[in-house]
């Protein structure tokens, strides 16, 4: 823990920002830090973090995944909790590192220990830190996309809705297909672009039907896929990570919007 921790004396949290947030959308990282600090955590952002290993894991490359996973374990096992602003990368650390080390007892034990303290950001705030409301403001109509891994691996469903609706005036208009995959799937969307396009259009048509002007979700991969397709179709729907709204950082440009528009 070399960096200056946050001032609070709460549990230590290692923030695994995810490579997409790090590279493409830093505001989600800052929003995560703010939400965690407001909840009383001491937040650390290890500088040596890169990727969770999911692209290699889902491509069948177990040896490289194991190497990447060792790095994550070494960088994060000292904290009380590991928090990830993504159900997908969180799911990778929580559920799949143990699969990678199934024949390596020493690393398996460390992977299991890390798994036990790894959480997706929003559910960590509600379920572990007992956050019930956030001091934010938002004027816009919201619909929500349940990212697959967040929903099915990390059990994230009601938590973001509870925190979002704690904001004055915010209501969520649910689509019929909130739990349907958006067609991102990591490398899937570039390997099978036609199917991915069909899936993301199904998702977007469902979003349009809600009449909401903003789509929120907890995974940047899904969000970039949906936003990119919304913009390609010339639609005027803003796409953001849930944490941006909860941390009151929604004056930053939405995903894919130019900086000077803010």
């Amino acid at each position, binding site marked *: 823990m070399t960096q200056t921790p946050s001032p609070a004396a709460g549990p230590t949290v290692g923030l695994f920002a995810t490579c997409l947030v790090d590279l493409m959308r830093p505001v989600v990282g800052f929003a995560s830090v703010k939400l965690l600090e407001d909840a009383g955590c001491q937040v650390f952002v290890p500088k040596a973090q890169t990727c969770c290993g999911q692209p290699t894991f889902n491509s*069948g490359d177990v040896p490289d995944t194991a190497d990447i996973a060792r790095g994550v374990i070494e960088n994060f096992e000292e904290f009380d909790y590991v928090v990830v602003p993504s159900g997908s990368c969180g799911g990778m650390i929580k559920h799949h590192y143990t699969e990678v080390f199934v024949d390596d007892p020493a690393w398996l034990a460390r992977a299991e220990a890390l798994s036990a303290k790894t959480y997706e950001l929003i559910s960590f705030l509600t379920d572990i830190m007992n956050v019930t409301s956030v001091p934010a403001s938002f004027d816009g109509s919201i619909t929500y996309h349940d990212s697959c891994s967040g929903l099915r691996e990390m059990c994230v469903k009601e938590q973001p809705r509870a925190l979002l609706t704690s904001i004055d005036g915010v209501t969520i208009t649910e689509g019929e297909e909130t739990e349907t995959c958006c067609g991102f799937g990591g490398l899937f969307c570039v390997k099978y672009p036609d199917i991915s396009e069909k899936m993301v259009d199904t998702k977007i048509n469902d979003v349009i039907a809600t009449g909401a002007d903003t789509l929120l979700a907890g995974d940047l991969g899904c969000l970039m896929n949906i936003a990119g397709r919304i913009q390609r179709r010339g639609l005027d729907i803003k796409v953001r990570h849930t944490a941006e709204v909860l941390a009151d950082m929604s004056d930053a440009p939405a995903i894919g919007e130019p900086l000077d528009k803010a």
Partner: protein
Amino acid sequence: MESMSPEFKNNARGAIANDPLQAALGKLTHGFPKKRAEAAARLPEFDDLRDLARDIKDHVLENLDLYLETYEAKVIEMGGYVHWCSTAQDARETILDICRKADAKTVTKSKSMISEEIAVNRYLEDYGIEAIETDLGEYIIQLRKEPPSHIIAPAIHLSKEQVADTFREAHQDLDASRDLDEPRALLEEARAKLRDKFIHADVGLTGANMLIAETGTNVLVTNEGNADLTNNLPRVHIVLASIEKIVPTLEDASTILRVLARSATGQEISVYTTFCTGPKRPEDLDGPEEYHVVLLDNGRTDMIGSEFHEMLRCIRCGSCLNHCPIYKSVGGHAYGWVYSGPMGAVLIPNLIGMEEAQHLPNASTLCGKCETVCPMRIPLPRMLRKWRERQYKSELGSAKARWSLSAWAWLAKRPALYRPMMNFGIAILGQFGGRGRFKSLPLAGGWTSKRDLAAPAGDTFINQYHNGARGDQSGELMRRGVIK
């Protein structure tokens, strides 16, 4: 059946551009999944039953040799015959042999995916024996010379107008101006055509939803009653089933029946559930004089103990297809072989080879929906990934994709190099991403062919954070000129 699986990408593209198919698939979304959810909600112990059903099949697979032998002994005791077949060809020859001994001219068939797997219709026809599908959906696709596009709803890819056209072409003896607008009219016409076939068939060939070891019984589940006419009316009944269909007891069969129809169609139980045991006994009024069971392996024993072992729990309910966003986008024919959807993507490479079917395990977002609705709790996403592991080890797939992945992994393992490389990349992208996103980008064509790519929103998070930006907004430092 010859596989079209290597053409998966083209098949999928064609399917997406096929409007009638898309209309048919659109109906699926609001049909079976909704009914399944309602049926599951009406039965509080549904999830407990799924656990029980899983445990039954796990136990069977652990003791498969024992139960198969018990089953065989019981079938023989009840007056039937059991034929062990290792390969599809063995099974075809065995069926032909039984038909020839029965001097059969026509064989009626109730729906059987195993009969599709071994392509027995064409084989029998090559030897001058007419095989007639009697399930309505199978009858339709047989007329159209198409494979099934769904394991329980073989003609789900067709509209009723397409079926009407097919019937007009096939049934030219009927009045050309007859009204075929309503599904009921189509059903009546097929029923009238099939009635005669049922009565005159020499052999009835059915599948089996289960084989019960303690009684030597095969279980048949249909909604049309066609299986009952197929197994009762002809002189010879052939049951074609794969070895993993075994369950130990009647009690076990009824447990699985309780999850089967609910998962498949949302029914509490299918309209007809039939238990057939041996040939007609002296005191029986009707039934076949001969009862044969053709037991097929066709690669399944190789799956036992492998990473695909649990796939052998599958009861072919079709729930994973009905809930799969890939299946719902492209339909069953795109998969290019007999099975489709997540179960097909796991099973097909086992049956026709990993190379031939290499697309199928990759054409998934691993969204996990299938596993949540599988009555047998088969970890389908994990097994799709296991195929990818095998492919990776065998160096299947494009060299470019492997190279890109290795390069990423190499960097991801070396934070000290990763950081400056990413800084460099982000700076370049940032230079050109002033409009917030890219319409096209070199090396990112797979992405930008269909969607814009959001440009990086400034310096990386890690850099900004470690340079002292604490809780600042994205891009704020950039705007203030702190970071270029």
